[in-house]
Every structure is written in C-alpha cells, then in structure tokens.
C-alpha cells in the first residue's frame, strides 16, 4: 500500500534528517517504526503526510508511493483526501474547541456529511471516556484522553492509512496499554492500515505485524514483529531488558548490518 524508497530529506536546506530510508507497509497491517531520539522517525511520517514544507524541510531524493501513485510533492490537504492521515506528535488537539468539535474538525475533508454523526458515535464506542467529555473544551482533558481524542479525530477523516506519531508520549503506562489495545482493535475491526512511530518499542511491537528500526536516518533492522521482540540485540538496545548493556553495546553496534 505504501512504499518508501531511498528517501532523503533535509531541514533548512542543510540538516540531513533522512539518509535513504526504505520501508513498505502492506494493506491491513500495523507496522511499527522504532528508534531513539533524532533517528528520523517523525521526519519520515511528516514526509509521507506532506507536512515537511511547513517546517522548512523538503525531500531531496527517493520516492514515496501510495497505492501505486508517487506522492512526493502533493499538498497535505490533497493527501488527507487521498486517505493518508497523520496524528501528530504531542497530540495537537484543538485546545479551545470542544471534544465534539475536534471530531468534526477531523472530518473536514469528507463529503458525506450525513454519516459524520454516526461515525462520531462509533468513535465514542471505541473510547467511551470521550462520550462523557463531549462538550468539554479539549484543552482541559488529561493527556491520555487527549491522545484518544487525537486518534479519534484521525479516524473521523476515514483514512486508508493512519500514521501515529508516538501515541505513548507523556502518558501513564496503564493508559498507554489501553490506547494500544484500542489501536489493535481498530486495525482488526476496520481493517485500517496503521504505521506507528514509537520509542516504547515493547508495546509497539506487541501489537504490530512488522517492524523497522531506524538510526541516524537509516533503517538498521527490520522483520516480523514477533521475531524482533525475540531478537537479543533489540531487547538490549531498545527494550531495556538487556543485562550487561555497557559491555555489549560497542561491539554489537559495529556488527549491525545496514540495509
């Protein structure tokens, strides 16, 4: 469904953020994109959703292909209409709008006005907490509730591909679990394809079908989520379960293969 090949992107014409990323998202899958701070995860999502330009960045090389069409230079509003929706990092809900208005804002590009109301009810079924807060200003919601709203707002656009940028950021562990369970449920029930960027590799891989690990703007590892979870290297570097990290780190890093 989505094929990114050798993507290179720079900020302010000089800071190289992506150095040839390639990845592939199949229809109906959840794909996890993992890596540490500054690895280029968010930049990848922004490039796919056309939002790089708003931050003075642009794609210098490579292609992004969505459903067989090259979408490198398409404006963000066109991409939303084509079915790619990005839930930005840090939730970015509209603070002064009510929960309900936020959901309507998500449906902005849709033409089928009549079914919006019933879709809002569907979002409330996935996230019952939102129903109770329907008329509250979104800025007063807790972090977890805001994240639910951000995902719900994304679903309102009826995307074919949902991009999630760090849904666990700044949220209590228990809520993170609930949110990820909901993401999995949405994927299974709606057949929605999801590309999720996470620092919390453990939880992301637990719901994903496939995973990529990137570092310094390159993919350094990829594989089935279950295989990645068992991989010793990964558990040491990203899952925080390794025993002697200090000793092992330096040589293991060198051994890693670059795709």
């Amino acid at each position, binding site marked *: 469904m989505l094929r990114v090949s050798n993507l290179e992107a720079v900020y302010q014409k000089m800071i190289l953020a992506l150095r040839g990323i390639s990845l592939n998202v199949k229809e109906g899958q959840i794909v996890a994109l993992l890596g540490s701070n500054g690895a280029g995860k968010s930049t990848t999502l922004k490039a796919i959703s056309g939002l790089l330009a708003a931050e003075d960045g642009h794609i210098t090389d490579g292609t992004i292909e969505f459903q067989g069409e090259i979408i490198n230079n398409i404006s963000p509003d066109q991409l939303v209409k084509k079915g790619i929706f990005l839930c930005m990092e840090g939730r970015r809900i509209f603070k002064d709008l009510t929960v309900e208005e936020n959901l*309507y804002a998500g449906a902005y590009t849709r033409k089928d006005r009549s079914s919006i109301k019933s879709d809002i009810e569907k979002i409330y079924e996935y996230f019952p907490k939102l129903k109770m807060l329907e008329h509250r200003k979104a800025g007063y919601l807790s972090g977890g509730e805001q994240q639910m709203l951000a995902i719900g707002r994304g679903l309102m656009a009826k995307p074919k591909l949902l991009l999630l940028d760090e849904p666990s950021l700044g949220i209590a562990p228990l809520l993170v679990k609930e949110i990820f369970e909901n993401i999995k449920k949405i994927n299974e029930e709606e057949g929605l394809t999801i590309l999720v960027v996470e620092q919390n590799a453990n939880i992301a891989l637990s719901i994903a079908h496939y995973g990529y690990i990137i570092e310094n703007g390159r993919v350094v590892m990829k594989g089935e989520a279950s295989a990645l979870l068992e991989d010793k290297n990964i558990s040491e570097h990203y899952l925080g379960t390794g025993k002697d990290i200090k000793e092992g780190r330096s040589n293991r890093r060198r051994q890693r293969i670059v795709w």
Partner: protein
Amino acid sequence: MFFLQMLINGIVVGSIYGLVALGFVLIYRASGALNLANGEFVLFGPYVCLVIMTALNVPFLVAFIGTLLFSAFLGLVVERLVIRQLQNAPTISVIMATLGLSSLLAGAVHIIWGHTTRTFPPVFPQTPLNIGGIIITPVYLWSFIIVMILLVIFSIFFKYSKIGLAMRAVADDRQAALSMGMSVKFVLAMTWMIASMVAAIGGILLGNINGVSPTMSAIGLTVLPVVILGGLDSVMGAIIGGFLIGIIQNLAGGYLDPLVGGGLKDVVPFIVVLLILMLKPHGLFGSRGIERV
C-alpha cells in the same frame, strides 16, 4: 436624564467599536499579527458606499451590499498581495507591512476623495424618538440593531459552519489544522475578507452618525484599547470591550470634558486600559491559552 442619554450614546458607539474590533481580533487569532490598517479599512467603507449611492443613484441597501462586495475584494487583495508573501516571516514584519498598508490606503483616500467632510443623504428616518424623556435618533437605534444582528450571525457562523470551525481550528493550532486537510491559505483569505467587511460596515454606520471624513481612520486607534481591554484573542472580549470603551468615552465626554475644556474623551479609554492591564495583563477575557501537558 443626562446620564442615561450619554449611556445610550455610549452603547451605540460602543457596539460599532465592538464590530470593528471583531475584525481586529479575527486577524490576530488567525495570524498572530495586529492589523494596523484596520482604521483605513473602516475609512474605505463609507466612501465607497457614498460613491455608489450618489454616482449610480441607487438605494442605500444596494450600495451597502455593493460596498460589502468591494470590501471583501479589498481584504482578499491585501491578503494575496501582502500577507501571503510574508507567510513564514516573523510577526513583526507582518505588523510593519500593515502599518505601511495603512499609509498607502489613507493616501489613496486623500487622493481620490480629498479631505472635506461629506455627509450621507438621509438614510434612516430623521424624526428623533422620545422614549420617556430620552431622545434617540433613529440612526443610533438602527446602528445598534444592525450591529446586534451581525453579531448573532457571526456567532452562529463560528459555532456551526464548517468554515467557522476551520477558522477556529487554524487560530488554535495552525500545523494541526494543516494535518486535518484544512487549507490554511483559504482560511486566512476568508479571515481578511470578513475583517475588511465588518470594518466597512462599522465605517458606514459611523459615517451615517458623524459624517464621512479621513479622520474616521482614528477609530483604528480607538479600537486598540477595546481589544486590549477585552483580550486580544477573545471575540467575546472584543464586543464587551467595545461597549465598555464606548460608554466610558461618552460619559467622560459628557461629564469631564466641560470641566477641562475638552479632549479627555479620547484619553480616558487609554487610562482605563492602563489600569485594567495592571490587574489583568491578558485583558478581561484574553487567555494565555490552556496550558496542560
């Protein structure tokens, strides 16, 4: 009786201030910039309306609608030619551009229409209404009614229409609005069109009350204490601030001006604003934004 008379005058003038301030606030919310050319937008309205009325010899209502179309066009042109070019520029550049724009527009008005005061042909009935000893001229009454109707229309527009929702979303978080598939360019163009239109309506109403002259652009300066008083980013604050400043101005004009020989009318609003800002730095209704992480 004198007090009530002054109060009513203040409410009427204040409602017009509120309307003009609304345009000011909309632009501030959407782009974070002060539109210092707002007073000149006010100035263009009555002149264009007058020209249409006298040159084409059409009724006021037709000229009024024609003026609205012209103002919308003016707002659109300004947004396209000036504001859009400065999309990624710092806010101060945008503010300076509006300052330049205000000189340009003021100059254009001087060149085209000179600087003599003109009066509108009588649009509203002339006989004053006497309600319990208080004399209200129909112009005042109608101005107030028109402003109130417009404010209701606008609040419905912002609350329930799709474009209104997009305008509020862009004001809230421009990047996030972009990721919703909202066209920020379209929203900004709409904002400038609406701001220019409400300014023109305010100008036409004021022109009917006081006559039309280039000094009317001073309302751009009067509206500044209004929006700062109400809170720069609050639509509600703009309207209430408008009433407050209008009332304060008229009461000061009525009671204090005779004591000192005039001039206090224009100063007192600023004194009030200073006092209020000491207590509430964000204005009466302005928010520093909901902050919670």
